[in-house]
């Protein structure tokens, strides 16, 4: 087999491949034999017809096609190896010569991973926000917890007040005719929640348990049900019970009840610490992606169409899986977006291009800086993951290996390390170590 390679542009390669005549005729014979086994030729038992009869029966072109199918794929794979190119799309094949006993010559155009022209990627000066948590934020969080742990008490004798939960039976009428969906029993309505039509909840205020009353409201013009929008309605409502939230006072007792701390001050401090931590984490993440974004922006790369389409394909698949897990049929979703598949694909495009570019740039930087994942790195990462899933590291490693995901796993580590490298070199730390320390 002989391969000639020619670069067409940054991301496309033209391969001219020649396969020897012996191989071609062998493949041709095999194709004929195979075809003979599959089809019935009158006068012959299956698989017993001689080659020239089969040839006449199915046509030479058919057999040639079959033989080529068999030849081209391995030839291409071989060619990829020989020329050390990594295709990212299915090749377009152009057959130059295909005869039973001549060399097979074909040209294949294939899109390859484009070369990335890296721009500046170290020494960015970026402002890193400091994590701050104000006392008000802590106080708010405390309030939320207080609210969550509030007790509901039933008000035996009293009026419906704002924020109370009234248990009601109701039936709605328009022009004295009950309408569909206007009826409910034992409904827990929180006054002031805005769950019902404007005005409804207000009119319940002041009612006492057991009281029956009529509530007159007008459905808003933009009400979701067209039959009801803008109509006046009368609801017969019976208030069955009133429940009221009673907040527990914020004190040491409260802290003891809901947490492992003894005093409110300790709880407050803990909340503050946790909020600070999560704020720091999100700032860190933001910072990291900003650094990466900068490096990506400075680099330039021509992404072949095939790669983009491939990425969009997998994004579409992901979306469909997400929808399926929620039990929504795809057509429904398309209707909801008011877009057809083509338009959805188009809308994913920017994201796809951005994602591919980021990957390519990170990869290029990793290559330039010789960032690799050593075995120790892999082991360390696996141990971490194993701890998360509560499995043994060994077990996890074999699982990853058997599924052929170890390479993918390594890639993740390299990417992380590359980002670490970018971050460290941006903060202008004096040591621009290639193997940056991993931060948790």
């Amino acid at each position, binding site marked *: 087999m002989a391969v000639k390679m020619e670069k067409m542009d940054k991301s496309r390669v033209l391969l001219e491949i020649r396969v020897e005549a012996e191989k071609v005729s062998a493949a041709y014979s095999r194709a004929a034999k195979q075809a003979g086994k599959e089809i019935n030729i009158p*006068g012959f038992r299956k698989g017993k*017809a001689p080659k020239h009869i089969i040839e006449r029966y199915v046509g030479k072109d058919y057999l040639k096609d079959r033989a080529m199918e068999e030849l081209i794929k391995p030839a291409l794979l071989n060619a990829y190896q020989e020329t050390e190119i990594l295709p990212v799309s299915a090749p377009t094949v152009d057959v130059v010569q295909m005869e039973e006993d001549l060399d097979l010559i074909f040209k294949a155009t294939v899109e390859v991973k484009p070369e990335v022209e890296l721009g500046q990627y170290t020494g960015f000066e970026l402002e890193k926000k400091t994590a701050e948590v104000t006392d008000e934020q802590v106080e708010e969080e405390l309030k939320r917890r207080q609210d969550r742990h509030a007790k509901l008490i039933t008000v035996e004798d009293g009026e419906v007040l704002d924020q109370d939960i009234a248990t009601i039976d109701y039936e709605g009428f328009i022009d004295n005719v009950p309408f569909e969906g206007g009826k409910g029993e034992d409904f827990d309505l929180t006054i002031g929640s805005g769950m019902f039509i404007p005005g409804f909840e207000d009119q319940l205020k002041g009612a006492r348990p057991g009281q029956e009353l009529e509530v007159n409201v007008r459905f808003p013009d933009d009400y979701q049900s067209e039959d009801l929008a803008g109509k006046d309605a009368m609801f017969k409502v019976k208030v069955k019970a009133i429940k009221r939230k009673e907040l527990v006072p914020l004190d040491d007792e409260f802290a003891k009840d809901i947490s492992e701390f003894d005093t409110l001050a300790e709880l407050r401090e803990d909340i503050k610490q946790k909020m600070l931590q999560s704020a720091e984490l999100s700032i860190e993440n933001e910072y990291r992606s900003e650094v990466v974004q900068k490096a990506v922006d400075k680099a330039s790369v021509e992404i072949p169409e095939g790669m983009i389409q491939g990425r969009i394909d997998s994004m579409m698949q992901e979306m469909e899986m997400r929808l399926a897990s929620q039990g929504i049929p795809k057509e429904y979703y398309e209707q909801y977006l008011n877009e057809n598949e083509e338009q959805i694909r188009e809308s994913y495009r920017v994201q796809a291009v951005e994602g591919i570019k980021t990957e390519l740039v990170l990869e290029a930087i990793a290559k330039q800086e010789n960032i690799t994942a050593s075995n120790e790195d892999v082991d360390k990462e696996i141990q971490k993951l194993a701890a998360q899933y509560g499995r043994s590291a060994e077990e996890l490693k074999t699982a990853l290996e058997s599924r052929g995901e170890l390479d993918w796993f390594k890639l993740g580590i390299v990417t992380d390390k590359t980002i670490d490298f970018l971050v460290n070199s941006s903060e202008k730390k004096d040591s621009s170590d290639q193997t940056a320390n991993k931060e948790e």
Partner: protein
Amino acid sequence: MRDARDVLIRPVISEKSVGLVEDNKYSFWVNTAANKIEIKAAVEKMFKVKVEDVRTLTVKGKEKRMGRYTGMTPDRKKAIVTLEPGNKIEGFAGL
């Protein structure tokens, strides 16, 4: 005398007939009215070969039913022609 093309209808193509080619024997479906002498002459003229021997047999038609009507498929005559050594018909399957 009939024309060669009226005598020879088409070659018999089957596992058996293709196998017989090795013995220099070529099989043809021929006109049922044709005799061995006519067949010999027709093959010699059409393929420019020397014929050593002609054997013939009549394949009787089969009874076929189409609903309540019975009918017969036509009888056919098969001729197995042996060529003199050194002669052969190229592209036998064609014609």
